[in-house]
């Protein structure tokens, strides 16, 4: 009889409905005393069958379906999908549309990072900072509403270009909002980076080492905070990014050293807000004139989808990381034959194992929120890594996970 191991660890299920989590996700923590031994995330509570539904519709309708994959980054999915379709059907995009797309992308990055900063402060219990950051974010939402007509779902992407132009008389309002951000950015940086409470809670906790981030293919600010230089705006030439001066944002630009903890992720996101502000300004001065969409008549566009057969990939740097779409047309119907969506948080769930190991329970919300998870994007992922020391039939599962931990820890 295998010796009866005393059960020293306890299971705590958190979610799917929990005040700390804004979205339904199910954590199962194995803790011994205060220390977390193990993480088991199971999602799928928001599986709305986006890809299957997309295969029953034509690409114009899919643009608005892709927009509702995630409410916060509601611009990156349709733009990556549009890029994939343009790659598959070889549709050219006019130059002015490149710059308009970069402006919308960077404006969404500012909104999303401000939202994240507020929610992260709220996770530590710092509500005054939440109200302050969201007050600044309201300005960004006003600008989004002014440019696109709706605060959150922008509906500005069209396959082959953009749906709304930025005319001369819109520029004063854009510059006024950007100046509002520039002089408030110093205040935000001062509050977030020099504050004792935020430093106390975020320095040295939730560490993701360089080679863990590389091995687990983490993306976005989470991996840049660990020093991996991976940013698809800089790596790849698309839209107007090759003409703008842009560089990887890693913590050593501000503090000179990289240790991949929650504090570094705050630094990377704040640097990216600053970078987005001056990217928008560069775009506004360098924007050539010209039309904004290659094929204004939609029925003609739908006819081209019916004729083409081919496949294409679309990549875009969303606020949380690299969004990847794959589309395949088979030439018979205008509906795509296959459509694969890969959201950035898809790759940022695996790094939770090394981050949350040996942390306290109280750190779970802030460490989980530090990768800026967007569960509605990520209902396609779950990892199992539970070490149950019960005797009976869990043996095989136990052997599997121990062997996996040893391999991961190598």
């Amino acid at each position, binding site marked *: 009889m295998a010796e009866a191991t005393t059960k020293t660890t306890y299971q705590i299920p958190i979610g799917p409905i929990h005040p700390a989590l804004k979205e339904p996700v199910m954590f199962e923590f194995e803790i011994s005393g205060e220390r977390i031994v193990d993480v088991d995330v199971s999602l799928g509570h928001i599986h709305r069958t986006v890809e299957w539904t997309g295969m029953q519709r034509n690409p114009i309708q899919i643009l608005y379906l892709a927009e*509702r994959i995630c409410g916060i980054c509601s611009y990156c999915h349709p733009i990556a999908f549009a890029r994939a379709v343009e790659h598959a059907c070889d549709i050219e995009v006019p130059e002015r549309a490149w710059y308009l797309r970069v402006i919308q992308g960077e404006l969404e990055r500012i909104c999303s990072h401000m939202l994240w900063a507020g929610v992260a402060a709220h996770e530590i219990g710092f509500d005054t900072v939440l109200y302050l950051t969201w007050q600044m974010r309201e300005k960004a939402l006003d600008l989004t509403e002014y440019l696109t*007509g*709706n605060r959150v779902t922008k509906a500005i992407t069209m396959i082959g270009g953009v749906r709304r132009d930025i005319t001369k008389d819109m520029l004063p309002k854009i510059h006024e909002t950007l100046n509002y951000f520039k002089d408030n950015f110093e205040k935000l940086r001062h509050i977030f980076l020099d504050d004792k409470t935020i430093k106390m809670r975020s320095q040295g906790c939730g560490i993701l080492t360089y080679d863990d981030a590389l091995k687990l293919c983490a993306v976005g600010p989470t991996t840049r905070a660990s020093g991996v230089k991976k940013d698809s705006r800089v790596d790849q030439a698309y839209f107007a990014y090759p003409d703008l001066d842009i560089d990887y944002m890693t913590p050593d630009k501000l503090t000179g050293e990289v240790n991949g903890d929650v504090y570094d992720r705050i630094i990377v996101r704040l640097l990216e807000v600053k970078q987005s502000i001056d990217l928008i300004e560069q775009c506004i001065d360098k924007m050539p004139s010209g039309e904004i969409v290659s094929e204004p008549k939609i029925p003609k566009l739908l006819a081209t989808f019916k004729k083409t057969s081919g496949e294409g990939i679309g990549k875009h740097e969303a606020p949380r990381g690299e969004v990847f779409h794959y589309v395949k047309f088979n030439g018979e119907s205008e509906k795509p034959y296959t459509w694969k969506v890969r959201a950035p948080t898809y790759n940022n769930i695996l790094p939770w194992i090394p981050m949350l190991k040996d942390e306290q329970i109280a750190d779970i919300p802030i460490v989980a929120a530090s990768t800026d998870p967007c569960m509605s994007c990520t209902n396609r992922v779950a990892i199992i890594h539970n070490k149950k020391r019960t005797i009976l039939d869990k043996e095989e599962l136990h052997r599997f996970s121990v062997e996996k931990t040893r391999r991961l820890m190598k």
Partner: protein
Amino acid sequence: MRFTMLPQVFAQMLKKPFTNKFPVKYVPRNTTKLLEAVGKGEVQIIPPIETPPNFRGKIQYDKEKCTGCQLCIRVCPSGAIEFKPEEKKIKIYLARCTFCSQCNDVCPVNCLSMSNEFLLADTDKYSKDLIVE
């Protein structure tokens, strides 16, 4: 500086409140009486934050210009537009609409346009004023 947020909080006290007190400042004693008074124009409610030009609000449908070509039905992502074959006109359910204004762009005779009215909440989702005929 140990607590950087403190001076910001004190500075905030001297500034004008950021809140736009939308209908009224505080809870009215009886909402129905208040709404009737507003209807009669005795009471002035504070307007919401004004919407920018070409905001995407409630759809307006110009029935005469419509030729019944059903292009908008083919493009609507949420199936919110229903065709009435006998009079070759369309019927839009606002409870299903995503306010993306794709039907406005595709309409050849552009009889659809977006108003900036957005205060649409009702106890019954298929009530009269939530269906644009």
